[in-house]
């Protein structure tokens, strides 16, 4: 079976790769491109650990074939900080201790970034509904929600 050639822009870099038809975008990101920040949790779109932003839209990389990403622009957690300067969301997650084991954290950060890119002034309800697709099994959601709301307030000021 011949491989599929895919051209993308990932975290501002032009990236071309060959993949098998059945490889998900998450498989290619993690196993071939060695961008292991995005995690695999459920592989069924319930946990959000694999969240990436494709063409400005939040998606689950586990439910997307790599071949479907042809021509798209992808943001992953690896592109969120600017060198050693953390993204404001990352800093607020640290300040609020909004993480423990960290497996869900890349997904939460990406999902929260997608929200704030779109709506810089969300209500708490909007944050909670938006992040309903991301599961955390240790920290709990309050600190995460507060970190997102405080980032929004900080960025607006």
């Amino acid at each position, binding site marked *: *079976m011949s491989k*599929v050639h895919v051209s993308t822009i990932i975290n501002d870099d032009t990236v071309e790769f060959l993949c*098998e*038809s*059945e490889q*998900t975008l998450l*498989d290619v990101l993690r196993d071939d491109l060695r961008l292991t920040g995005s995690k695999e949790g459920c*592989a*069924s*779109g319930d946990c*959000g650990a694999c*969240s990436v932003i494709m063409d400005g*839209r*939040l*998606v*689950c990389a*586990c*439910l*997307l*074939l790599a*071949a*479907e990403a*042809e021509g798209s622009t992808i943001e992953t957690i690896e592109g969120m900080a600017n060198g050693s300067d953390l993204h404001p969301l990352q800093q607020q997650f640290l300040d609020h201790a909004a993480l423990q084991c960290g497996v869900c954290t890349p997904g939460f950060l990406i*999902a929260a970034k*997608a*929200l704030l890119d779109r709506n810089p002034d969300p209500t708490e309800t909007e944050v909670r*509904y*938006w992040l*309903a*697709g991301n599961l955390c099994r240790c920290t709990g959601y309050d600190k995460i929600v507060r970190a997102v709301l405080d980032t929004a307030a900080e960025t607006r000021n």
Partner: protein
Amino acid sequence: MKPVDFDYEQAKSVDEAITLLTQSADALILAGGQTLGPMLNLRLVQPELLVDITRIDELVRVEASTTHVTIGACVSHAAVEDRRIADLGHDFLARVAGGIGYRAVRNRGTLGGSVANADPAADWVSCFAALDAEILVSGQSGQRIVKIDDFLVGAMETTIGTGELINGIRMPRLGASVRCGYAKISRKPGEFADAIAAIVHDPDRGCCRVVVGATDGLPLLLDNDALGLGPAVALPAVLDPGPVRDHLAWHMPVPDLYRLNVQCAVLQRALADAHAFPS
């Protein structure tokens, strides 16, 4: 577990997609993949070929006339949620779309994919039943138009045939005095619903359709006469639970008291939703 080996083709036109679908005995349509993706990852389906139809321009069109809106099969739930398409009236479609799954799912999942999968707990299945929508189906011999009641056969089962695909969904523009209500009961936002109710009460078009969804099979269109409903009478604020329970119980092979309770509750919530939205 990971998907089995399969081939992947990106169709550029409806005709090309139909040709590809008829070339393999074991081809599946990929229309966003938010249901098919998990099924592939869990190897619940093991196709030889996936035909991706999401890049076909015709399938992401929206045609709005004075009487109908036709939405291409590959328009995403998020496009409807964000009001990037024409409104039927009462902001109905956007209100339904915003509650489907999670935002990441809504960004990729499509209307056509949802109705083709025909999961009884899918929001569009109940919504389209209440709207009396028509499904445009393209195949080798051209296009046929199927009313939603004839399109759905049962849980996860439709009348779509081999080598056919959903081209779009045609829905009526709603009248000025329409009331639309939608409600679902789920354990958590984004989860599959335990019960759904969808109501379209449109006196201008002589239409009143009250649907209970997330059943074990087809969405249940309530009998207007049995419940004192209809386009000529005002939509009640509440329904007398006694006759509603009897009516719903009659449609269950074995009456399930918990399910009857959530179905009655979700109907009342949909009625409240219909009355809460400014007409």
